[in-house]
């Protein structure tokens, strides 16, 4: 295998947690472990010692209002200069930019890059930026440098199509399947045939995570399985939801609050059923993959994103979104059928491997290779760049781009 120099640019501050940052970190560490040379450029406080050795800071990020929410971004001539130098000195075989239309390090890198093949990953499913529409013609020439676009979900791809009028190849976010598959059973979460356990995971006070639907289904489930227990894990306050329940039903609910990563894995590994009653707004459903990887049989709302994760034929049972009666019926049926639960869990665990970092990184590497071979196989640029006129044109071009 050829050892590559890979430059990855992340627009969001690396010293605060976030989905894009985790993705970039995991990807970088995976490629480093595979023997490649990786350097990540992102905003961060320069004097932070906790940052990984493969990291280069582009400067401190400033919290700023953009596109309806406050994000920590970086901009300005000093940053632009640093980005240019990083590309120049990096000697990269390929540049991988994340969220290249967010006003931060990635868009600057796209502006500055001249020779290296560029791969871009789009994470968000909701770019409704008026600024983007206005500035699109200005961004166009630099967006044309992208040789390969990746979207992390079908929804993110739809956004790329709608707003950038381009297409993208879908490669989902990676999950560390082994961490969930190898989790150990935890007595606290393990059910018995008489007292089976079902789990909910996610922000409990976020309505679209659907805890309310599950709580409405619970009394119906208890009619058939009077010993069933519901374990609710996730940050937030759901006391008002639980207080609304009949006290007899509430006695079957255990609120765990926020749980650690290892407890989460143990929980999903131990329970008899994992329920994903989400109402919408999920573009991928990473928790679903985690449950599948841990070997929990899954009952999920039939959101498009979830159906895609579950595959065809589905490796979990689905019910119509927010239909608590159907949900109760599915839960009741599955709790009575341990054999089907085992079969579902085995199929889901197999399916989850598709979302493992190993498989995800391999596909991303395939995109790098295609982008690089596309660049290598280009016919030579016309010799006009060597004439005076050609130099003028070229300097004009780099003026516009730098």
């Amino acid at each position, binding site marked *: 295998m050829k050892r590559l120099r890979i430059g990855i640019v992340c627009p969001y501050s690396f010293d605060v947690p976030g989905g894009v940052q985790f993705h970039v970190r995991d990807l970088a560490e995976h490629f480093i472990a595979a023997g490649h040379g990786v350097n990540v450029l992102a905003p961060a406080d320069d004097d932070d010692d906790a940052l990984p050795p493969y990291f280069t800071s582009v400067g401190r990020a400033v919290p700023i209002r953009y596109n309806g929410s406050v994000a920590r971004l970086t901009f300005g001539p000093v940053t632009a200069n640093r980005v240019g130098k990083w590309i120049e000195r990096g000697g990269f075989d390929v540049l991988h930019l994340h969220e290249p239309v967010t006003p931060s390090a990635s868009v600057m890198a796209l502006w500055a890059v001249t020779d290296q093949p560029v791969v871009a990953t789009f994470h968000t499913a909701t770019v409704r930026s008026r600024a983007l529409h206005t500035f699109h013609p200005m961004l166009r020439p630099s967006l044309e440098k992208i040789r390969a676009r990746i979207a992390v979900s079908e929804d993110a791809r739809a956004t790329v199509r709608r707003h950038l009028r381009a297409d993208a190849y879908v490669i989902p976010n990676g999950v560390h399947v082994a961490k969930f598959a190898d989790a150990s059973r935890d007595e606290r979460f393990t059910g018995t045939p008489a007292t089976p356990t079902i789990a909910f995971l996610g922000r409990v006070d976020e309505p679209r995570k659907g805890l309310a639907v599950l709580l409405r289904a619970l009394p119906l489930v208890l009619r058939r399985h009077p010993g069933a227990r519901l374990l609710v894990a996730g940050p937030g306050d759901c006391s008002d939801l639980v207080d609304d329940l009949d006290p007899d039903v509430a006695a079957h609910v255990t609120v765990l609050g926020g749980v650690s990563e290892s407890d989460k894995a143990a929980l999903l590994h131990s329970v008899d059923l994992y329920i994903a009653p989400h109402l919408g707004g999920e573009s991928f459903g990473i928790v679903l993959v985690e449950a599948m990887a841990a070997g929990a049989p899954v009952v999920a709302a039939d959101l498009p994103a979830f159906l895609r994760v579950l595959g065809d034929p589905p490796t979990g049972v689905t019910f119509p979104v927010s239909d608590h009666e159907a949900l109760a019926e599915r839960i009741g049926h599955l709790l009575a059928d341990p054999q089907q639960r085992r079969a579902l869990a085995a199929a889901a665990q197999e399916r989850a491997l598709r979302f493992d970092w190993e498989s995800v990184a391999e596909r991303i590497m395939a995109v790098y290779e*295609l982008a690089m*071979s*596309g660049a290598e*196989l280009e016919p030579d*640029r016309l010799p006009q760049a060597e004439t005076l*006129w050609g130099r*003028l*044109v070229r300097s004009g071009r780099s003026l516009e781009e730098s």
Partner: protein
Amino acid sequence: MGEVDVLQLATAVAVVLLAIAWYLSYAAARLDRLHAKVEGAMAALDGQLIRRAETALELAMSDELDPSSALIVADAATSALERHTVSLTGADPLDGVTFAGREVVESDLTEAIVAAVTPEVRTAIGEADGPGWDALERLDAAVVRVQMARRFHNDAVRDVRRVRNKLVVRVFRLAGHAAMPAAVEFVDDVPGVTS
């Protein structure tokens, strides 16, 4: 009108003309770059298609498929290997290549793979764990790369077509003689591998 005014006017006209000339040159250079990107993407797609046909042939020869499936796959793979992209003119690579009607053979190969390598066959090859498994893994990798390469190629085509539709580019014929690149459409979806 004094002489100074004429001088100023002449300077202004010269500046405007220079700016227009610069812009045209810039637009031509940009278009040139976009054409080159399409060529590169097409060459990459071509390479992946050859790899896919070769690995399909390898699987067909590996003795892991039943004879009739093996024949179907081998036939489709051989037809695909007989075809390749054609340069319209040899001299200037920017004059464009065409996909030369390969869409049909490549779709046929995809369909042959889907028909022959069913989930059951996949499981059987996995359990046998012989040379067929190795070939199947490489075929899967090639199938995914073909789909990626086609998408990236068509994306590059879209960029060129958009710029070439601009009024300035059409009026000043900035694209020269380069053929208008076209998107490549064929069936490349292999359920279970690409989705």
